[in-house]
């Protein structure tokens, strides 16, 4: 039972989710008697191959073409589908990033096979891949079983498995091929990209997230949220209510209609914990809630609940954190 992991990288640095999936695939392939291959489509196989050392990856299948340097769905899927047909892996794991989700679904269609999207857990039972994924706003979890003959395409959420970190040892063997891409493969051209302003780390990748809700009372209090997030090296999230009210832009929204996040630490400030919000963050490792209302639903899932006035507690907290660091700047 051979596993492939589609490598997600940025400017020659593999993303943590790549290591997470390689390491998990190695566990499963080891138990099921198969090997793990990394599929590198960006043409930067030479640069990144060493970063795949120590993860249990037997080989890197590098499909090269100038048209693949920058991610675009059609040429990546065409190249990947050809490689899958040539090598017939049983499972193809794809990081469930925005582009990864689009890629995985398109790849499954190209191969006329099934998909489990946004898996939070993958396992093998009796030679079959099983993928768990949340449904109905995270209130239920489905276990998807692949019943067809084709390869199992599965997109897996970042942080579903812990990042083993950069490994040491020999880099995987490189199997390099050229992609044969016709004009039909080139159906989109990226005109531009504007990075989110004032954000050193995006919500999905962040280890720490500080989120604000109605309870912070005023849009200008997002400054207080930002300061705490900055102090903890984290990103700023928000509830749907404050996004809908225009206090902060939509890319910050955490929840069923926003982003699903799984940081190590999630601090919910003035968020009551509507079920739609919980759907997007309840699998965070440690949840801290600060809220005036002791009966707020957020306290039911919080590891540490603080009942009190967020507008006072948060600035005090930031000040204390700064003092500990000895930065000395007054809050």
């Amino acid at each position, binding site marked *: 039972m051979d596993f492939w992991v589609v490598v997600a990288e940025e400017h020659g640095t593999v993303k943590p989710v790549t290591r997470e999936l390689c390491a998990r695939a190695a566990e499963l392939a080891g138990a099921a008697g198969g090997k793990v291959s990394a599929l590198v489509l960006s043409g930067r196989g030479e640069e990144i191959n060493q970063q795949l050392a120590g993860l249990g990856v037997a080989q890197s299948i590098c499909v090269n073409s100038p048209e693949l340097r920058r991610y675009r*769905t*059609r040429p990546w*899927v065409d190249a990947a589908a050809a490689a899958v047909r040539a090598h017939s892996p049983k499972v193809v794991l794809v990081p469930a990033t*925005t*582009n990864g*989700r689009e890629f995985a*679904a*398109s790849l*499954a*269609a190209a191969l006329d*096979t*099934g*998909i489990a999207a946004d898996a939070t857990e993958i396992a093998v039972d009796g030679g079959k891949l099983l993928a768990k*994924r*949340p*449904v*109905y*706003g*995270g*209130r*239920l*979890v*489905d*276990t998807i*079983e*692949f*019943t*067809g003959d*084709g390869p199992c395409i599965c997109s897996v959420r970042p942080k579903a498995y812990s990042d083993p970190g950069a490994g040491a040892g020999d880099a995987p063997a490189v199997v390099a091929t050229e992609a044969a891409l016709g004009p*039909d493969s080139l159906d*989109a*051209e*990226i*005109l*531009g990209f504007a*990075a*989110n302003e004032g954000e050193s780390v*995006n*919500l*999905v*990748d962040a280890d720490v997230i500080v989120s604000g809700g109605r309870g912070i009372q005023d849009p200008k209090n997002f400054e207080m949220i930002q300061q705490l997030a900055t102090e*903890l090296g984290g990103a700023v999230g928000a509830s749907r209510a404050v996004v809908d009210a225009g206090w902060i832009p*939509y*890319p910050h929204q955490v929840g069923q*209609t926003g*982003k699903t996040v799984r940081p190590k630490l999630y601090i919910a400030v003035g968020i009551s914990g509507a079920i739609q919000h919980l759907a997007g963050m309840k699998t965070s490792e*440690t*949840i801290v809630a*600060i809220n005036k209302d*002791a009966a707020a639903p957020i306290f039911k899932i919080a*590891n*540490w*609940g*603080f*009942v*009190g*006035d967020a507008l*006072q507690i948060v600035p*005090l*907290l930031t000040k204390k954190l700064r003092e500990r660091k000895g930065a000395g700047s007054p809050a």
Partner: protein
Amino acid sequence: MKSVVLIKQVQEAPSVQGEPGGPGKVVADSQNVTNPYDLFAVEEGIRAREKHGGEVTAITLGGDTAVESLREALAMGVNGAVHVKDAAFDELDSSGAARVLAAAIGKVGEVDVVFVGKATIDTNMGVTGPMVARHLGMTVLTEVFEVGEVDVAGRSITVKRLLEDGLQEVKAKLPALLAVTKDINEPRYASLLGIRKAAKAPVTVWSGGDLGVTATSATRVAARTVPAARPAGEQFQGEPEELAEKLVAKLVEGKFI
């Protein structure tokens, strides 16, 4: 410009049954609604017609009640409605549904743009749209929050997409399938006149036989469970100063600082 909007009827907020960690199921105790994301797609389809002319057709795959969603789309202003209905399609997975919907779009004719919502609120896969696009050889564009220039004669469309770390602008070939986010527009309310007209408007019904497809699933839901409950947490009360101090201590304890 000829476009299609794919919509799905879902339960608005059904309750779930089961004990944490054990088997669970959805209870059909909630009203049926059009998947909220799909209304943004319907609105965008109507706006495209208003701007570029042509027509927009809503298609749904579902049981008898799914026609209600088609009526809603008609009331909002789509020109035509197609109900793909076949008992053989009841339990299809996304890959099977994508095959059926692709066939239905093919039967509608040469389409320039297909609009879909980014995902449905029930199973939240978000894969059917991209799969349909692939089957039809259309450019796939997900997470679209703004449609820019559309050059139907020149066969191109420009959109903005919302990625994790920023906004991407893409110029793509037509035909294209756009999966839209909730921020793209504000869906209009149907007018009273619109609702009255929609109630009488014809809805085309196609079966698997009409479409010439026998779709099959490649996956199945082997188990549905209620997630294990999080262990009960600690709750602290007191003066802000004490609470902030306690939180610092907890962050130290958790090795976050």
